[in-house]
């Protein structure tokens, strides 16, 4: 591909996370360079959101080291972090009536923050196809519209940065219709390549991940099961083992897609993969 950083932008070594007595992530190691598009896959509760929270600096880790741009994450202040990485959480709820453009303008750095008339606000709202909603109340928007407004806010923050940067998206397109979803993820993938951005995106859409990810990280029970290109990770074996899905990766069309033949009944997949796991009924 094109010019990419020699040293990884993000480096995670032997990281574990324990919260409230529960082990959420176990011995994870990961190196991500600018320009890479990493799709974070795994069943519900696999640790995708937890990993993103650690990478965003929000949750301190139990053990191991996380470096961003060669600097330990823990040594960066919130302000410094905000100039190197942007984060879109799964859910943002508002209890006060804010305008869509006000929400987006929160992404502006420093004294500009909250200035809805700033040109960057309109630019990113247009990018996310929500410019026509600028003067509407955020709470009156549909779920998909709210998600695009939030994405515009995140992109405003990202575009104000200089140098290599990290973009963390947690199911950022889950409420969008398929057309919007494919269009936006395609644009995000191009953005990552063109602007020295490492994109890490958690999602549940296997085909979307296969089509636009340059790399796939498959998580299960807080551990990394597979890490590599879509072809290497989305094998029939991995899909059966992690998701209990009878599916395969179809690379014949213009976009790689995961085709599902059917779901395995629970006992078929689980018992063959983990013989120690038994269920007693009655």
């Amino acid at each position: 591909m094109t010019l990419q950083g020699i040293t990884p932008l993000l480096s995670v070594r032997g990281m574990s996370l324990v919260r409230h007595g529960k082990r959420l992530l176990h011995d994870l190691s990961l190196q991500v360079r600018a320009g890479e598009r990493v799709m974070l896959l795994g069943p519900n509760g696999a640790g995708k959101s937890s990993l993103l929270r650690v990478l965003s600096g929000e949750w301190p880790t139990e053990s191991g080291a996380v470096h961003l741009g060669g600097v330990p994450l823990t040594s960066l202040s919130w302000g410094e972090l905000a100039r190197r990485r942007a984060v879109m959480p799964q859910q943002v709820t508002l209890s006060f009536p804010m305008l869509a453009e006000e929400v987006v303008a929160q992404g502006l750095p420093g004294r500009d923050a909250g200035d809805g008339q700033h040109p960057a606000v309109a630019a990113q709202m247009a990018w996310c196809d929500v410019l026509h909603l600028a003067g509407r109340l955020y709470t009156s928007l549909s779920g998909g519209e709210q998600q695009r407004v939030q994405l515009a806010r995140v992109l405003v923050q990202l575009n104000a940065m200089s140098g290599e940067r990290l973009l963390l998206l947690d199911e950022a397109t889950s409420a969008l219709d398929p057309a919007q979803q494919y269009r936006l993820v395609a644009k995000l993938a191009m953005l990552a390549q063109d602007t020295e951005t490492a994109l890490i995106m958690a999602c549940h859409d296997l085909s979307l991940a296969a089509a636009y990810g340059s790399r796939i990280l498959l998580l299960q029970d807080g551990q990394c099961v597979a890490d590599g290109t879509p072809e290497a990770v989305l094998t029939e074996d991995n899909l059966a083992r992690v998701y209990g899905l009878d599916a395969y990766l179809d690379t014949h069309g213009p976009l790689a897609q995961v085709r599902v033949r059917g779901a395995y009944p629970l006992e078929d997949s689980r018992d063959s993969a983990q013989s120690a796991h038994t269920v007693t009924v009655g």
Partner: protein
Amino acid sequence: MVPVTGRLPARPALVLLTGLLLAGALLALRTGPMPLSVAEVWQGLFDRQAEASVQLVVRELRLPRLLLAMLVGAALGVSGALLQGLFRNPLADPGLIGISSGAALGAVAVIVLGERVFAHWDMTVPGMTLPLTAFVCALLTTAVIWRIGSRQGETHVAMLLLAGIAINAIAMAGVGVMTFIADDGQLRTLTFWTMGSLAQADWRDLRLVSPWIVLVLLAMPLLARALNAVLLGESVALHLGHDVDRLKRRIVVMCALAVGAAVSVSGLIGFVGLVAPHLVRLTLGVDHRTLLPASALLGAVLLVLADTGARLIVAPAEFPIGLMMALLGGPFFLALLMRRLPE
């Protein structure tokens, strides 16, 4: 890009509020048992050759009371706006996290136990025992609630609210005990204090409370941007680079100082902290850069008008301003809510 909601532009609205405050101030200086013309008020304020009685009424009676009403109103309005933003809850109020009830317990204890317990203190700071105790108690209660709400350097907003409600109940029970053991004379003073009043206002009160409230009013703009980000959630505020825990500490300390100071001289005046930020949000929107100063101005306007009304309606006696606020503000606020409800 034109907002479709019925919001007024911020700057003209702030100018309008300042104008309202000045008009209210003039009204407050003119009205009373001895009505004065604008010219007389002017002479009373600035002309050393003016009639002695006019000078006395304006400078020693009405001016300190007016300034105190402004400061107390601004303190309550701004604290309401700060706490509602921090708790992301439009119902938050300085009374909610125990600041007011702590102060009330302190004040009522001085009224009832005054001669026995606080006698030696009254010698060193004559006349200031009640406001000082109320102020210290407000800070202490806030500190206790803060301790309960914080774990390992993190502050849990829901825990803070619950602890506040519990401490409120305990403090009000303490007020109840004091009421129970009070004699008739004390009971009267105590009742008036809990209904709120600015009747005792003088320059000494003003000197006691103004530094704290002015400090908070000057520091308030520094928090506006971080509070705006907190409206999207604490996580998002962190992602945007705001130190949310530091913000929480600052807001609680600022509210304890401002409300503690206000309550210590004026007694319990509810409603301003709730209604002023609400009215501002309905008309100007939620941006704290406008919301905070506008809530301070509107709180001051409301209190100046209510105090002027309190002096007028049952003259020569005085109506408690706390009751006044609740009686007039309550129905008005309800009507406003009902009108907005269909949207």
